[in-house]
């Protein structure tokens, strides 16, 4: 290892307390930085994974979500007659006409009400969403007041567990099964028979029609054909696109909030690094003079101090990322403004976030160390050696 590199590395270990304090300041900033990015990533991942690339969602034109939408029975039948739909079991098209409404349910423990999505599903709905797997109990019998609840609902909401009852729309509903849909939005939903639910909610229209395309490449032509049909007032979206749109505003909010917070916080940490590095230079004037007298160039001195600042940043970055990685075990549940419904999602650490966080910590190190490093490099040999 060349001497200046070794020198800067050893310096950090000699002044342990100062190094630890400065690095922990940066670690906290990196932690906040990584945590907000992970949260936005987790939200988007949940909603993107909810959709399948071959599935198409048809909702009323202009309505942004299934909750606001309404598709008349006649229009739903027209969609059903499209030739582009995959044929499913029994020769019927793989298509589900669904009802999506929100109900108010109290949370377990706090008893605070939140909006929960209740989805009326048909037989094809399960085939369209292979992510949805029954983990406990059984499927509801068609035509009965039986429902199944997503895992997040069963855990978080009063009356959502197996064998429990929910009362809404003047009827008593029994939870007969719990399903797990992985980290998708479906885990925060309750599913029941669409006809029973439409009856009880007195909603004569469906909310959306979902089907699987025979050929995903033909989506555009199918979309324009469907939307230009004078009998229709609907729009078709790829399911992946639909769920991405649902998460956009919230993910953007989290990102902007996170970035502006970390920017302000990083000012504090950069100042901390700057103080440390200035002190490091001031305490080592004689040493710097000696190095120069031994024949090391100004560039080497500059390099040594910049390296020291980079090391400092890297220590902070790693120290911030490690606890951030543990956040992946935490699940957050909040209302998504675009659908007005409760959604549970976890922090998610992607390689991109790791790279970004480490780069960010290095930038903080450089920002704090650059000016002091220049000061060190500019010292003249005689003056430096003479000071004591």
């Amino acid at each position: 290892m060349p001497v200046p590199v070794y020198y800067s590395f050893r310096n950090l270990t000699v002044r342990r307390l100062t190094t630890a304090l400065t690095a922990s300041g940066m670690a906290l900033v990196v932690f906040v930085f990584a945590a907000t990015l992970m949260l936005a990533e987790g939200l988007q991942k949940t909603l993107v994974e909810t959709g399948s690339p071959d599935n198409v969602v048809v909702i009323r034109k202009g309505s942004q979500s299934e909750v606001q939408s309404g598709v008349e029975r006649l229009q739903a039948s027209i969609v059903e007659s499209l030739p582009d739909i995959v044929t499913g079991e029994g020769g019927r098209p793989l298509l589900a006409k669904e009802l999506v409404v929100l109900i108010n349910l109290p949370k377990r423990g706090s008893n605070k009400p939140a909006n929960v999505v209740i989805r009326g599903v048909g037989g094809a709905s399960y085939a369209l969403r292979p992510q949805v797997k029954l983990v406990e109990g059984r499927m509801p019998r068609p035509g009965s007041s039986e429902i199944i609840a997503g895992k997040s609902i069963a855990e978080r909401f009063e009356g959502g567990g197996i064998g429990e009852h929910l009362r809404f729309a003047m009827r008593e509903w029994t939870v007969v099964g719990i399903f797990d849909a992985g980290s998708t939005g479906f885990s925060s939903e309750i599913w029941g028979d669409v006809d029973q639910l439409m009856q009880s909610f007195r909603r004569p229209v469906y909310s959306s029609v979902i089907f699987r395309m025979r050929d995903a490449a033909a989506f555009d032509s199918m979309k324009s054909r469907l939307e230009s049909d004078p009998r229709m007032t609907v729009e078709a979206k790829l399911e992946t696109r639909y769920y991405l749109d649902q998460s956009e505003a919230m993910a953007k909010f989290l990102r902007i909030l996170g970035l502006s917070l970390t920017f302000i916080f990083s000012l504090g940490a950069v100042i901390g690094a700057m103080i440390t590095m200035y002190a490091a230079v001031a305490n080592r004037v004689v040493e710097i003079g000696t190095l120069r007298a031994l024949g090391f160039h100004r560039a080497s001195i500059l390099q040594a101090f910049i390296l020291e600042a980079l090391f400092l940043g890297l220590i902070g970055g790693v120290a911030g990322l490690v606890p951030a990685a543990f956040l992946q075990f935490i699940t957050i549940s909040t209302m998504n403004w675009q659908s007005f419904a409760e959604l549970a999602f976890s922090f998610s650490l992607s390689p991109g976030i790791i790279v970004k966080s480490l780069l960010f910590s290095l930038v903080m190190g450089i920002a704090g160390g650059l000016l002091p490093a220049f000061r060190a490099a500019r010292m003249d040999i005689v003056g430096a050696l003479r000071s004591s």
Partner: protein
Amino acid sequence: MFYLKLSLRNAFRHPLRAVLTITGVAVAILAFGLLRTLVGLWYLGVETSSSTRLITRSSISLVFTLPVSYRERIRHISGVTEVSSMNWFGGIYVSEKNFFPNFAVEPKTFLALYPEFIIDDAEKRSFLKDRRGAVAGFKLAAKHGWKIGDRIVLKGTIFPGEWDFVLRGIYRGAQRSTDESQFFFHWDYLNESLRKTVPRRADQVGLYVVGVDAPEKAPEVAQAIDAIFRNSLAETMSETEKAFQLSFVAMTEAIMIAIKIVSYVVIVIIMVVAANTMAMTARERISEYATMKALGFKWSHIAITVFGESLFIALLGGAIGVLLTFPAAHLLETELSQFFPVFSVSPVTIYFQLAAATLVGIVSSAFPVYRASTINISEGLRRIG
């Protein structure tokens, strides 16, 4: 006095370091104040709600409507002064980016129930007369450059189609905290169009706003309303406006809790930075402390000087941070008026900021105070650098 002088002199012995630390503390205290204000804003709707207003909505959830016929039945309950109705319209003006809350309301009773929306008499009369008339908040109108008489088109998301309105009035808020970015229009206009296009959705109301003559009667009236409609096709759920707003806030509580935690993180960050400054200072001055001790100063004297220096730096930074909070809040209010209609700093926030600065000063001096006061004279004097 002597110790005070010594502390102040010491604080600026390394001017660059002192300035950097003070800047750091100021930025952190500023960020802390703004974050706390942001959290407070979340609860603004709760604070500005009136205790004499009840909200009656469908017991299933807000997306279900109530029949318009309920209005007369609610009005006959004793204690009820006025009943108005609102429908969340969810219209989009030009693009989704221009989001603002817009409601179809029963205009006359609505204005009577919300005295905090101040609108002058001539505008009010012309609004009530024109079925296509609409009223917008002052900030909303200013943002889009709307003037009285302008035609405004909203694209419906819940109610399909393009909806035409004429701006008849611009309201101002009675208090600084009143939201001036809302948009109201006649429920009749919406209803008549629905009767023609989707008759099954006509004659439906999103929620009722019920005025009560005395706040203490509110729970009683709420129960009476829900009792009338129990076991009907559209059961109701009535609560005070405050509880209603709170239930909205509670749904996004997780984010608020995260912001609250983060606002404390910034204080911890700056505490670490200040502690570092003080630790370095103490290290460099070990031989000085030994000299002072040799001269006969007690450990407590040295502790006071170090403590005073730390507190001085933290409080100076804190004071600058507090002073900067006001222009920063004003800037946010003008730049981000779409998200935060009001961004005003409360006195409590300022106390919290000062308390945080004091805490930073105390905590960051702990280690150096310990080090300086326990120093051994001969060892300290022997030490170089």
